[in-house]
């Protein structure tokens, strides 16, 4: 079992519904977020190309945040989901420094917080809030170890990339391009 997410950059319109859905679902304090949208424009006028990405923790397979955490608060649970156990976190910031994607932030209550792939929903067989909320249905969440899952199918048939794979993190958010 290995959960992952594939996000279709060609379908995403950058509406930020995933951001709001996450903030609502996970009670993210105002001014913070666990996922966000980036917009990259490149090319020379008039040949411009725009890429919209909904970004979040990559639930890295070789997660440097887990390696550097001195208490074991940052850990990989079943299905390869990277979480922070709030009661074990001392707020040292080692994991924030070690994440190449800046996916973590210090919660006003002191512990470090980040995307959990909505573990509480996934356990009940639901989709993460962002995936469920997306109006263009551009996100696919599921088990990439299962060759018959929708996400495995998408990854087999579409061109894709991960962010900064050279950081050696083995990210599990795939962008369909």
């Amino acid at each position: 079992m290995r959960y992952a997410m594939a996000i279709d950059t060609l379908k995403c319109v950058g509406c930020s519904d995933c951001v709001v859905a996450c903030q609502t679902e996970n009670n993210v304090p105002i001014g913070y977020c666990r996922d966000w949208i980036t917009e990259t424009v490149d090319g020379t006028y008039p040949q411009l190309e725009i890429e919209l990405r909904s970004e979040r923790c990559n639930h890295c397979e070789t997660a440097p945040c887990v390696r550097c955490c001195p208490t074991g608060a940052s850990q990989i649970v079943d299905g390869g989901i990277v979480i922070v156990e709030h009661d074990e976190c001392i707020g040292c910031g080692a994991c924030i420094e070690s994440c190449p994607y800046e996916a973590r932030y210090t919660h006003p209550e002191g512990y470090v917080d980040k995307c959990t792939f909505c573990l509480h929903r996934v356990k009940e067989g639901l989709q993460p809030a962002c995936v469920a909320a997306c109006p263009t249905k551009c996100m696919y969440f599921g088990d990439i170890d299962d060759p018959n899952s929708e996400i495995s199918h998408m990854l087999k048939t579409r061109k894709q990339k991960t962010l900064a794979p050279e950081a050696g993190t083995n990210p599990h958010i795939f962008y369909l391009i």
Partner: protein
Amino acid sequence: MKEELIISGRNLPHIDPHLSLWHWPISLYLFLGGLAAGILFFAALVTLFRKEEKYLGAVKYATIIPPIALSVGLLALLYDLTHLWYAWRLYMVIRIESPMSWGAWTLLLVTPISFLWMISYFKEYFPNWKWQQGVWNYASIAIDFINKYKRVMAWILVPSTIILGIYTGILLSAFNARPLWNNSILGPLFLTSGLSTGAAAIIVLSKSHDERRMFSMIDLVLIGIELFLITHMLMGMLAGSQVQLEASELLLGGEFTVAFWVFVIILGLAFPAVLEIFELIGYKVPAVIPALLVLLGGMIFRFIMVDAGQITRYLY
């Protein structure tokens, strides 16, 4: 031609400016940790070679610094924890993969020994105190007891201070997300710098000319090694990938260039080295001046590395 017009959308006022989240407490802690490790290393070595009488500055005077430095460093570290009341969690596990974890354990070993070491000299610090009367008599017995185990402490200190010194660098170099830190030279480099500041502190507090001379010589060698390691570090980065090139750019032309070259390389290493050479070949130079410069340079070095490192990142 490829032109990147906008990379934006990430507009998180409560998050992004704070990702550079390690500030002066961490830099100070790294400096003080290295300094304490340096002093205790030399104190232990002198003790093991049974040269205490000759190098009193190292074993007796300078060793007042480590317990204070480690306590202040530890307070700075605690001050930096945002979930402070859970700090005890640090001592519920040993995670060899996480430098912060084994560093914290090493600190737990070295700090008490540094206090015991200082206490073992209390009778010599205060010879006229009424050590024979009342409760002070017990204190005196306890101090004698500690003194019996001085060599054991020294044996523990030699490896543990090396680990402590190297940890101050490895703590940073373990973060592959920060290309400036992520090079294996940083551990040995911070260790050398820690030993050098330790030697400098001994020079400042020593009362004997011979001892100052000896430690000036040691310091000179350490400065040489340090310059060599810094050169190596920069060379490695210049031969590295794009992110490393950009990281080295910060010290070679970018934002931190002046601070790094003026305060660390010139005033903190090269100039003190020249002064120490002058002194060794017989010119009269107050040994305190190069020593203080080395201490200052060592501290500024930690501040620059901590601040600059956090700017560097992977681009995607």
